[in-house]
């Protein structure tokens, strides 16, 4: 086989870069082509389209078009929901992971919790919305129970599953497990010796957490917050199945735009999608940067 002899000859005598360049790089060509065609180019198409007029000229008017009250409101509510579900997901997920890792609970709880988290963090989308409708919806389990036992209606208390809080509570179902999955290793990374070193140097438990434990965890916490934010921001299916089109958030707006060009301007659609990439891209950049920092510490 020609490839084989070529590589063999190359590895025997260190050749000039020119000689081995083509043979070696041929191996990743299919992958590169696939990624280029079905990941990079489609994304570039959107990004470039966001700055193009219908006839191909450069413009900023598409992006400027985002700054209309209704679209800004959609971004704002999307960001609020994503941020709220990320914050709550972080706090609750952290509490659960901390309970298992630091709280002195039996070690046998740990594996089942992590397995369950793996499943739950993947149980997103349409069925998740159904599960919450069946639970917190107008005729859901909780509502029926409260009505028959206490005569209280959740909607009378101002709770509506098709709302900001409804969506946030639903998103938490995949946000919390994701947090548990990411933060458990970080908590494991807190060495027992740090706590002991702090104690023997005279620090109280509170001082240890304030000066050592929390600062060490902070990059992981903030990084995961960014990741959860991006995760919620890009979630389309859950939102659509839960609220139909009654909630004006960016993914739903974009979905409607792609389906029927409701905005009447395809390039505004590009700008809308571009805005999503910018938001999730920023969140992920923060995640990567903070993660690199905490890994450097804990090396």
């Amino acid at each position, binding site marked *: 086989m020609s490839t084989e002899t070529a590589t063999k000859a190359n590895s025997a005598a260190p050749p000039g870069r020119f000689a081995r360049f083509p043979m070696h790089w041929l191996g990743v060509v299919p992958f590169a082509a696939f990624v280029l065609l079905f990941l990079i180019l489609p994304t570039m198409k959107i990004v470039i389209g966001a700055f193009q007029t219908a006839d191909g000229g450069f413009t900023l008017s598409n992006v400027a078009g985002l700054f209309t009250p209704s679209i800004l409101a959609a971004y704002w509510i999307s960001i609020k929901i994503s941020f709220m579900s990320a914050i709550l997901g972080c706090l609750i997920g952290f509490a659960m992971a901390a309970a298992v890792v*630091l*709280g002195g609970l039996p070690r046998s709880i740990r594996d089942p*919790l992590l397995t369950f988290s793996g*499943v739950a963090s*993947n149980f997103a989308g349409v*069925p998740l919305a159904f599960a919450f409708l069946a639970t917190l919806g107008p005729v859901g*389990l909780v509502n029926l129970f409260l009505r028959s036992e206490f005569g209280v209606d959740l909607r009378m208390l101002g709770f509506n599953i098709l709302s900001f809080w409804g969506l946030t509570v639903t998103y938490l179902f995949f946000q919390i497990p994701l947090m548990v999955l990411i933060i458990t290793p970080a908590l494991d990374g807190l060495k027992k010796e740090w706590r002991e070193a702090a104690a023997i140097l005279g620090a109280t438990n509170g001082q240890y957490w304030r000066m050592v434990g929390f600062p060490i965890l902070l990059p992981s916490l903030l990084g995961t917050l960014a990741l959860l934010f991006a995760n919620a921001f890009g979630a389309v299916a859950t939102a659509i199945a839960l609220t139909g089109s009654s909630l004006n958030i960016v993914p739903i707006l974009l*979905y409607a735009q*792609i389906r029927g060009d409701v905005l009447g301007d395809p390039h505004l659609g590009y700008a809308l999608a571009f805005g999503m990439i910018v938001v*999730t891209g920023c969140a992920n950049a923060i995640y990567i940067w903070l993660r690199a920092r905490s890994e450097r510490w804990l090396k």
Partner: protein
Amino acid sequence: MKRLWAWAALIIGLIYFILPLVGMTNFSLKMRRGEYSFDAYAKVFADSRFHETFGYSVWMALLTIVFGVFLVVPTAYWVRLKLPYLRPYIEFVTLLPLVIPAIVIVFGYIRLYNTSSWLPLTGSYVGTDVLLVFGYATLSLPYMYRAVDTGLRTIDVTTLTEAAQSLGAGWATIIGRVILPNVTVAVMSGAFVTFAIVMGEFTMAALLNKPAFGPYMQLLGANRAYEPAALAVIAFGITWACLGLMQLVSRLQKTPQRPV
């Protein structure tokens, strides 16, 4: 005291997770007035659209897995063997689908491969099927690549390759008969995640107008009361089975494999 707080945090968390599962199961059994029954499930299973979309999604999932394996295994292998300095970049690229929302990617597909473009994939039925498989492969790339790459780390790729070469094997033989069997477990765990993702996926299938299980669930949810809950139970079962199998398989990996 500390342990009390720990139990409280854990139990409150678990209630939050169990309640929706109980809620949907309970709701799915209440179609008949006043008593529990499997009517909703019977309705769902009797629906020919259920069979069509479910079958279609299973088919798509299998195609995606096969395509993903053919794409990822040789690449990950080749990068480890010959281009290790490329690994960080490849890894970064494979994580991009977690950053770029699926809806943006599929939007790009629709604009890039429409009927008037150089590659009019959306113009034909088979073309959109192919596009959907590629889309699913993109979505599952982070999981598939990571699983395979982790699997390759546990075997000595270079030595295996040189041993096979010294026995006269060509590249196809090396990858197909030496490398692949040694990363079966990793490939399978990647395959199970892919399956779970494809079965529940909504956005891509809906925007490409394909009769997949995700859009079917959404459509049913908009029009029916009890059947969606039954579908949610089924979907949860699929997710649970896939990831449970994945855990099982990766646990098998830790015990020594019998010689091939």
